[in-house]
């Protein structure tokens, strides 16, 4: 039998005004197990807490009930009080007689009666409380960042600057991501490379950062503070340590007809290649699908010319296993495939390009060395038509994406403006449904495109792009303001294609047991209050993997995620919430119902050997809850038909005892 103390708070007149606290204390004194029941003006005050502490010692209390304000207010306070007196803090229950009693009832009799019942329920519950000890799990002080774009780089730098080692895993041969392909950035028109490449170098040179380029995450095990990750390093056929990045091999390689993915296939590269001049790591990579040596066994020129002896045609994929305390997902985005939108003739004319392609066409390191030229004939275009919302905001049409891709309005304004600035002889049209410019200096930027640069913004949409015999593109569009159907003879059409999460995201989410929405964007732990964390503890989100974002927003989120990671890694161990689920192995059926409803992947199964009552042994599949991962929602406890799964602090019997006390 527990020895229970009951402490009724007046809260000045807040409670005592409509609840007869003396009567409550008196009534509760006669409840079974109650050895002391008393009242005081302010239980949460120093004096009130001393009163509780003394009572715990003097009466050798094993549990206490405080009848006071909401547990949301002072449960933590009274738990600390109990702990200070040597009582397990989880032996404290609060009866909420202020917010849920005295403040809503005007009649003293009614209020008092209800307060007594609430007190009884708390006493009934505390009878069944068990001392809980918050478990601890150690934290591996190393972070993994998946994705080496600006989001991943920023996160890694911030974490590393705080003194924690970070590994970046990037599938491409170099880090840099989409930002490396972008020419200028809105709304300031800084050169993207000028602000990105120093960061890439910082990352490469940081003694706390280790970059696994041309690598993928192959397997993730473990949980917050203690992930175990297997990383696959794809064979480059080049020893990255020996390679100096001199580029001689690239120059000599006879196979020079491979579409260059960095320039989105608008020019060619060689079979051995370095994606771009500022690549990090600056190491050559052999494309095995194009390399003559790899395909036919004949050639080997690169090995001959490489003075460092870095070429190794026999290289195999290798695996690294590493432990991490936290994982940051920064897998980024891609423009969608436009096959289903060929009314815009993307597949019919090389002069219809996506906005990302347009970036390359205006970039000094791009296929045209920065001069805007039509891909079809290399001529200077005079009339350009930009089409916004291509594949975005599609709903009910069974193609495209239902969401707004967010960045297109601004980059289109940027493209249009730069076009007019650099080539004043051009005529630039932008077809828009809405221009969305929420952001610092964004609307001003868009207005500048219209007012200073004379970009012709037309409210309406393009219905068809018809490639003509003379090489021009006849753009048929509506002008909803003028009420006209326009036919514009254009030289180039630029499509603001919707963006979607990278394809690697979904399998990764499965490995991480992190949740995703229907569009394959990672879900945040809370859309407002925890936007950089995944609901899965220890997994953080950075950049477009969580939703469409521009660069400043991506960088903010990247730093936010880094701060969260640092906050985790500075701890030597994690104190776990002890109010978590636990499975009674003797009753567990191993049916997996609990595992299916657990949002955190906290439940795993193992085959265990049990001694049976008849002295035989049997192997049974049983669930076990990882207390470091469980958040204590209790979904599993109801899914479990046998009642093997229960929740500390809110056990089946505790809740039923409260029910009984209330319904008595």
């Amino acid at each position, binding site marked *: 039998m527990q020895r229970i103390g009951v402490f009724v708070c007046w809260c000045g007149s807040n409670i005592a005004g409509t609840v007869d606290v003396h009567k409550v204390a008196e009534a509760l004194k006669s409840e079974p197990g109650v050895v002391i029941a008393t009242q005081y003006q302010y239980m949460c005050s120093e004096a009130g807490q001393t009163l509780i502490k003394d009572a715990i010692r003097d009466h050798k209390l094993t549990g206490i009930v405080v009848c006071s304000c909401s547990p949301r207010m002072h449960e933590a306070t009274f738990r600390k009080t109990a702990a200070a007196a040597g009582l397990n803090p989880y032996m404290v229950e609060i009866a909420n007689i202020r917010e849920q009693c005295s403040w809503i009832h005007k009649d003293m009799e009614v209020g008092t009666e209800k307060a007594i019942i609430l007190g009884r329920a708390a006493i009934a519950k505390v009878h069944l409380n068990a001392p809980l000890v918050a478990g601890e799990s150690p934290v591996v002080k190393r972070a993994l960042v998946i994705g080496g774009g600006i989001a991943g780089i920023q996160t890694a730098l911030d974490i590393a600057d705080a003194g924690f080692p970070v590994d970046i895993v990037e599938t491409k041969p170099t880090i840099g991501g989409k930002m490396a392909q972008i020419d200028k950035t809105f709304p300031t028109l800084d050169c993207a490379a000028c602000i990105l490449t120093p960061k890439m170098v910082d990352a490469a040179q940081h003694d706390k950062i280790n970059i696994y380029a041309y690598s993928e995450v192959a397997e993730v095990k473990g949980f917050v503070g203690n992930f175990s990750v297997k990383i696959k390093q794809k064979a480059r056929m080049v020893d990255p340590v020996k390679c100096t990045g001199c580029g001689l091999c690239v120059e000599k390689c006879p196979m020079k007809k491979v579409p260059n993915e960095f320039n989105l296939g608008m020019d060619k590269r060689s079979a051995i290649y370095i994606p771009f001049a500022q690549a990090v790591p600056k190491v050559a990579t052999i494309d095995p699908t194009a390399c003559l040596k790899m395909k036919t066994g004949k050639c080997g020129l690169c090995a001959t010319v490489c003075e460092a002896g870095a070429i190794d045609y026999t290289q195999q994929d290798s695996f690294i296993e590493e432990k991490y305390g936290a994982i940051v997902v920064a897998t980024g985005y891609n423009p969608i495939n436009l096959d289903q939108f060929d009314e815009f003739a993307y597949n019919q004319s090389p002069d219809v390009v996506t906005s990302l392609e347009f970036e390359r066409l205006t970039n000094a390191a791009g296929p045209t060395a920065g001069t805007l030229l039509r891909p079809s004939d290399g001529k200077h275009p005079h009339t350009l038509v930009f089409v916004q919302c291509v594949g975005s905001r599609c709903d009910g049409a069974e193609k495209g994406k239902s969401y707004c891709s967010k960045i297109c309005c601004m980059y289109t304004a940027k493209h249009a403006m730069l076009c007019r600035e650099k080539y004043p002889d051009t005529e630039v049209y932008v077809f828009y449904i809405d221009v969305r410019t929420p952001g610092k200096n964004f609307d001003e930027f868009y207005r500048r495109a219209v007012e200073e640069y004379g970009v012709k913004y037309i409210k309406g949409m393009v219905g068809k792009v018809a490639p003509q015999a003379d090489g021009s593109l006849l753009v048929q569009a509506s002008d909803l303001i003028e009420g006209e159907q326009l036919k514009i003879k254009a030289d180039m059409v630029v499509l603001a294609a919707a963006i979607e999460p990278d394809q690697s995201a979904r399998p990764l989410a499965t490995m991480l047991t992190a949740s995703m929405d229907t569009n394959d964007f990672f879900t945040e732990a809370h859309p407002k209050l925890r936007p950089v964390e995944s609901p899965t503890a220890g997994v953080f989100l950075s950049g477009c993997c969580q939703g469409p974002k521009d660069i400043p927003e991506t960088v903010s989120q990247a730093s936010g995620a880094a701060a969260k990671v640092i906050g985790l890694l500075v701890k030597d161990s994690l104190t776990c919430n002890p109010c978590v689920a636990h499975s009674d192995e*003797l*009753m*567990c*059926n*191993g*049916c*997996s*119902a609990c595992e*299916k*409803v657990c949002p955190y992947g906290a439940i795993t*199964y193992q085959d265990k050997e049990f001694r049976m009552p008849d002295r035989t042994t*049997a*192997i*049974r*599949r049983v669930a076990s809850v990882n207390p470091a991962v469980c958040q204590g929602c209790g979904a599993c406890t109801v*899914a479990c*038909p*046998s*009642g*093997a799964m229960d929740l500390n602090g809110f056990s*089946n*019997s505790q809740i*039923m*005892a409260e029910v009984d006390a209330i319904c008595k």
Partner: protein
Amino acid sequence: MQEAMMRRAKELLADGTVNRVLGWQKGEFAYDHTPAVFDSADQLEQFVYDDFTAANLSKYLVKETKQEGKILAFLKPCDTYSLNQLTKEHRVNRDKVYVVGIGCEGKADVEKIKALGIDGILGIKAEGDNFVVETLYGNQTVAKTDVLAERCVVCKSRKLMTYDEILGEDGEVINSNRFDMVEKLENMTADERFAFWQNELSRCIRCNACRNVCPACTCEKCVFDNVNSGIANTAAADSFEEKMFHVIRAFHVAGRCTDCGECSRVCPQGIPLHLLNRKFIKDINELYGEYQAGEDTDSKGPLTNFTYDDCEPSIVHERGVE
């Protein structure tokens, strides 16, 4: 059929495919065949199978597949649904069962036969649309439609869901009218429904037969037997379990019940317990999309799943009769 099954069982024992056979043997009467495990050809002489053989064997496999070696199980279409569900829930190790699927045309309900005034029953044989019942007093022919077990009258499927081989003919999933009775109840007034269930459930003697036979009730320890669950039937003082047993049981098997009908078959008081389960199945089908437990071994059950736009519980107010 019985001979063919026996022969096949002996073959499979002889060639080492299995070391035991799960089937049925005669009980006290000619019509109460009880599940039995046979481990030799000799023992198999006791094996019986006819149109009275009704028991679903799948549940026995929970225990049997924990034993050494592979066991042969003869499963009717109903039973294969149960086996799939048990496999999904990791209760049965499918690799340790050799399933011989047997076609089923529906089983006879001995109570219905007796109600026709037929006594001294010695055996039964199907002949077309009739059963020929052998009795001490000669053969009697009864129309199948008159004596088929209730669950067979509204059979949902004669298709075998899982098997290693088939004896007899595999059937098809049937577009049955199994929900008719549930619907009829739904269309009654609340008072009528209450009267109906009070009449039915007041006959319950809490013998636990329904739970013990149910292939979805395979808990290591039933909550009703567990003193720590807070709802166990520890003392007469607590009548909770008495009252709520069937509702809780139905909820525990909701989304998992394959509608095999064993609960009602074994109820000594003839309570139509399957209607509770079937009500859940009907609700699930209507509210969350068609779902048949035991159809496969990997889909997510309706109660361990959700969609963002599921209906609200207030839908109960909008449907049916107050």
